């Protein structure tokens, strides 16, 4: 029997071949997350597409007042209908799309703000540090709901209100983490080496700090999407966020609980989806943290 070189090499070493990055997803203990993730991501993408293609909006917007509060699997609606006879499955998918868009928007805004202010504070002199610290402290002390109420009063409740209110209260935490990390990064030899070679501060910030912050940032971003989705649901539930007829998980909870004695499924389904998405995102964040951080260092949440 002939063997290929790798087979020979593997023989007798007693080492198990390391599974490839992709195959890890299909190991039994990861499978449940993989399947859940694929479903949630697919639904989320579909939901986002629904928002972007106007001609598809009828799928979740069409009302049928003759068929309200249909139970799941009854008439042609897999998950039944709501108080206006709209299809619940499509409502959930579209709502998830909106929630994800808001979550991603909040996260991107927070990361950009946090990176900028954090690096400015840690690397651009004492004055910049003092100023940015004050800004971070003051912003951090501001509750999201109060800000949302103010914004809703000023510009009216909308998706923009939600994104702004959440982003403006989320970024200070990340700015703190960035500042701390950069304070340690800037003392590293490769930063000194770049400085003695005359590389400008701005280039060092972008090419060395931002890149070296990526592992932490990616993990934090996933948590931020999860918390932003909960925040969005909360604000929309209070009527400060997404307005009907635009669907959102928080809005469905809010409307559904008014009819809880007639039909429980809109509330339970939207609540369950919210919980599952957040659970999945948190587990995914943990998974990433394990994969991305070779030192097992736990980033502060």
């Amino acid at each position: 029997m002939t063997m290929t070189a790798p087979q020979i090499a593997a023989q007798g070493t007693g080492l198990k071949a390391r599974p490839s990055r992709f195959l890890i997803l299909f190991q039994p203990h990861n499978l449940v997350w993989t399947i859940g993730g694929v479903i949630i991501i697919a639904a989320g993408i579909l939901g986002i597409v629904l928002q972007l293609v106007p001609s598809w909006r009828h799928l979740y917007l069409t009302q049928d007042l003759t068929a309200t509060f249909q139970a799941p699997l009854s008439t042609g609606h897999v998950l039944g209908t709501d108080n206006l006879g709209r299809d619940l499955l499509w409502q959930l998918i579209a709502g998830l799309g909106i929630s994800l868009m808001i979550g991603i928007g909040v996260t991107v805004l927070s990361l950009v703000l946090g990176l900028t202010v954090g690096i400015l504070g840690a690397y651009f002199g004492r004055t910049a540090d003092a100023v940015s610290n004050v800004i971070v402290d003051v912003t951090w002390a501001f509750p999201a709901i109060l800000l949302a109420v103010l914004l809703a009063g000023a510009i009216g409740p909308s998706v923009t209100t939600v994104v702004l209110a959440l982003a403006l209260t989320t970024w200070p935490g990340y700015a703190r983490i960035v500042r701390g990390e950069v304070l340690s990064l800037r003392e590293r030899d490769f930063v000194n080496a770049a400085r003695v070679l005359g590389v400008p501060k701005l280039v060092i910030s972008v090419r060395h700090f931002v890149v070296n912050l990526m592992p932490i940032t990616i993990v934090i971003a996933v948590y931020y999407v999860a918390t932003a989705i909960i925040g969005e649901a909360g604000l929309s539930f209070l009527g400060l966020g997404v307005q009907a007829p635009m669907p959102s998980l928080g809005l469905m909870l809010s409307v559904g609980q008014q009819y809880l004695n007639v039909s429980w499924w809109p509330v339970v389904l939207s609540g369950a989806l919210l919980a599952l998405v957040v659970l999945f995102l948190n587990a995914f964040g943990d998974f990433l943290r394990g994969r991305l951080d070779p030192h097992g260092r736990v980033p502060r949440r």
Partner: protein
Amino acid sequence: MRGPELLVKASVSPAAVPASRPALALLDLSISQRLRRTEKRLVTHVDLEVGQGEIVGLVGESGSGKSLTALACMGLLPSGLAVTGGDVHLDGASLLGLAPKAFRALRGNAISMIFQDPLSSLDPCARIGAQIIETIRAHKDVSASQAKRDAIELLDRVGIPRAAQRMRAYPHEFSGGMRQRVMIAAALVLKPRVLLADEPTTALDVTTQAGIVELVRELCRELQMSVVWISHDLALVSELADRVAVMYAGEIVEVADSKVLFRVSRHPYTKGLVASGSIRPYGERFSYIPGSIAEPGTWPTGCRFAPRCERVREECVGEHPDFRSGTTTVRCVNPIEYEAE
């Protein structure tokens, strides 16, 4: 406080100074740590001139102020430390008076530096090609593709095989010697006039060391570049440098031609250093200098080496010694004398 040290500059022997205008000149350079009320002196009155194309070794124990001196030349002293006296001249022009922006333009361009540990000197998250291109583009307004061509050429020049492919490698994929070659390539991007090498081979194994030393010597000749080679490895410095300056407790105690210094070391400290470094016959014990280097702030008012010196005399303790001339320039009231050969 300063008293006798002020005389040092005037008493430097002309024999130890190169004839042409120096590429780099440290003039009476002092560095201190600013404390609440006082200053802690770390480096005092360092005078050193490095001629064009000359390699000068800067030797001394850890904590003698070698690296601080180099960082001061780059204008990159750690926060809390400051140059409290003297100046650094590059080609006759003062460096320390420069605005931060003007200084940055010179770094990597006219004066460059490489560090001890090439692994930590390279960003682990960036490809080595990107790190060299970054330096090129920080100084020259060239297109990305031109910068890339330049970078490949440089890597090729410092002896990285298959340079074009290796541009996309990350630092961890390189061996220590290769990494130091990359650092040298980055430092030499703009053919600087002066290269400060802060123990560049300490983290490397001996065979790799030889390769790096040879490379620096070649490049120095090729580019007419001046090199300050900081090290505590006397054997290596004697091999590489034209002249050697020995530092002890924040000051230069002896400057001499490298061929002379190791045969006829006049300062007792230099002699101790040379003796502790040389290879002994089998069975003979290592020689070493008893005691340890005086911490800054606890320096004696007299000769700073006096507490450890076996030739110590009464006058060593009272007054701080000036430089004395002879075959070498030495800061000692009782230097070792040699019979004329």
